[in-house]
């Protein structure tokens, strides 16, 4: 006699207990602290903050610890927490021109006012495993300049002065807020950039890469990549004053792309833009490529590559949505499967009957 399985509640509780045990690992090893993750797995923390769209290094590190280092799971944990937070104020637009530069390069010019500043980069490292790091050696202090860098002008502003690149206009309209309102396709560039900014890095990287291989090519130059801290300011109505409430680390990429132009407008370079929390350079490059690709319609270009199809690109960029829906296939589907079984058996029976009578007819003919 079959007895339906019960006890899901206990099974779930036990599974979570086992998960906690695996997360902790061998008890002889010291437990990983949130401070260590924040201090030594910085790039993972920055990626989690970006895709969760919440700037909080400590909680992002906690999410990484809780997720056993699974970035997508950590993004989800932090995003779910973000939803519960009250919205106390809306900041003034950030001015990345005033960024306290840690790194800043341009691939378009050999030398630039303010200079090329490499900063902390994996570029030019030889990707040889450093076995010294298996042992616990001392890391030397970094070389330091005597004085802080002066404010660096934006490279694209220099092109702007000559009219060689399209200008960005602020039309003063209230930008969409993708965290409060459902996307209403077609969405404008402000909403698009928000969706790309929290989009999965791997996904944007693949799409950006596809434009370089000819699926919606847009001839990019990395006009400027900068990385550093920017003040966050809010306007306090009661005081009628703008005050600084802190600073956040940002990565920004301004891409210069091939010209547009028409009978009315002289040919000029076009732009793609990427912005992310923390040190997230690869993400901002990919985002800028995809942003530019999504401007195809606006710039009168043929839409030929996947990266140019706005609804396709944007509807599938969010890792929290994507991983949720893909993983829901693990949930029971007995009822739907039973419905398919019933139909398939019926179809196969009908097919067998039809074939049977068909064979008989053939024999009759012989």
């Amino acid at each position, binding site marked *: 006699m*079959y007895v*339906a*399985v*019960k*006890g*899901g*509640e206990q*099974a*779930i509780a036990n599974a979570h207990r086992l998960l906690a045990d695996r997360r902790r690992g061998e008890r002889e090893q010291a437990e990983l602290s949130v401070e260590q993750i924040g201090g030594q797995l910085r790039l993972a923390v920055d990626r989690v903050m970006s895709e969760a769209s919440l700037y909080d290094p400590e909680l992002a590190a906690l999410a990484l610890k809780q997720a056993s280092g699974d970035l997508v799971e950590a993004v*989800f944990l932090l*995003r*779910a927490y*973000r*939803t*519960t937070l*009250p919205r106390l104020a809306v900041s003034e637009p950030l001015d990345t021109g005033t960024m306290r530069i840690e790194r800043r390069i341009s691939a378009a010019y050999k030398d630039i006012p303010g200079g090329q500043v490499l900063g902390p980069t994996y570029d030019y490292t030889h990707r040889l495993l450093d076995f010294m790091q298996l042992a616990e050696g001392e890391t030397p202090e970094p070389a330091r300049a005597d004085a802080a860098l002066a404010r660096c002008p934006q490279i694209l502003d220099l092109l702007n002065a000559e009219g060689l690149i399209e200008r960005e206009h602020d039309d003063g309209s209230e930008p969409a807020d993708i965290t*409060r*309102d*459902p*996307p*209403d*396709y*077609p969405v404008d560039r402000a909403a698009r950039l928000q969706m790309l900014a929290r989009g999965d890095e791997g996904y944007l990287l693949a799409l950006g890469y596809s434009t370089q291989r000819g699926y919606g090519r847009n001839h990019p130059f990395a006009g400027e990549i900068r990385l550093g801290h920017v003040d966050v300011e809010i306007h306090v109505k009661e005081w009628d004053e703008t005050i600084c409430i802190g600073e956040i680390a940002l990565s920004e990429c301004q891409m210069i792309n091939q010209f547009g132009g028409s009978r009315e407008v002289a040919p000029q370079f076009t732009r793609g833009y990427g912005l992310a929390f923390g040190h997230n350079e690869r993400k901002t490059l990919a985002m800028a490529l995809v942003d530019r690709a999504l401007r195809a319609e606006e710039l009168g270009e043929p839409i030929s590559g996947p990266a140019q199809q706005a*609804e*396709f690109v944007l*509807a599938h960029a969010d890792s*929290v*949505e994507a*991983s*949720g*829906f*893909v*993983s*829901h296939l693990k*949930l*029971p*589907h*007995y*009822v*739907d499967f*039973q*419905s*398919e*079984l*019933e*139909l398939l058996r*019926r*179809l196969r029976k*009908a097919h067998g009957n039809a074939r049977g009578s068909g064979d008989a007819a053939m024999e009759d003919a012989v």
Partner: protein
Amino acid sequence: MNGYNFAYLDEQTKRMIRRALLKAVAIPGYQVPFGGREMPMPYGWGTGGMQLTASILGGDDVLKVIDQGADDTTNAVSIRAFFERVAGVETTTATAAADVIQTRHRIPETPLEHDQILVFQVPIPEPLRFIEPSEQETRLMHALEEYGVMHVKLYEDIARYGHIATTYAYPVKVDGRYVMDPSPIPKFDNPKLDMSAALMLFGAGREKRLYAIPPYTRVESLDFEDHPFEIQQWDEHCALCGSDHSFLDEVITDDAGNRLFICSDTDYCLTRRGEVA
């Protein structure tokens, strides 16, 4: 629970969702966009249904949660535990005792009453999605009541298989106007949508859409005069309660592939067994 509002969502969000629900009830079968929030469960695991439940739940409501018709499937257990924790409401497995029933993939066999609300979890709310992937296009098609493609799709099934090959998420027309996806319930359950005494609400969290069938609304399953809509039938009876009229799940009992059939609606099956005993 400490640190969270009653039923998890903040009151502003609940109000936004209730407003969208009122619109959905006023336009039966129409997909209303709403500012869906992240829930502490993954998208695709019932976040739409949970947001609706959270928005309509009151402190003295009794909640039932089922998945595949059963109260004891893991995700039903998990969602029920969530609302016990964040809303502290009373829960039940008895269909007749529940004020709000959140469901995935089934409508209970016991007929629902006019003071009950059934909340469906919806993965893809757009019935035209697999014919036309673009949201811009499908919205236009709904606005123009351009549903010919749906009948073409069903006709192609008949031409190819001799049957309409859609067995679940079978499209319906609500109150003679909107074509609607009833969520992936088996078509066996479609007749229960028609003139239902209970209010039926549908929530799609990831897609940020909700829709409704108000009580006593006409709901027709799409079909053709010469290929009328029909529901699944089994030669077998439920091995536990003997029912010959409920939706049956197939259970494989040994390595030789022997199987038996049992009611997918666990409460219905248990109640019948109690009555028989």
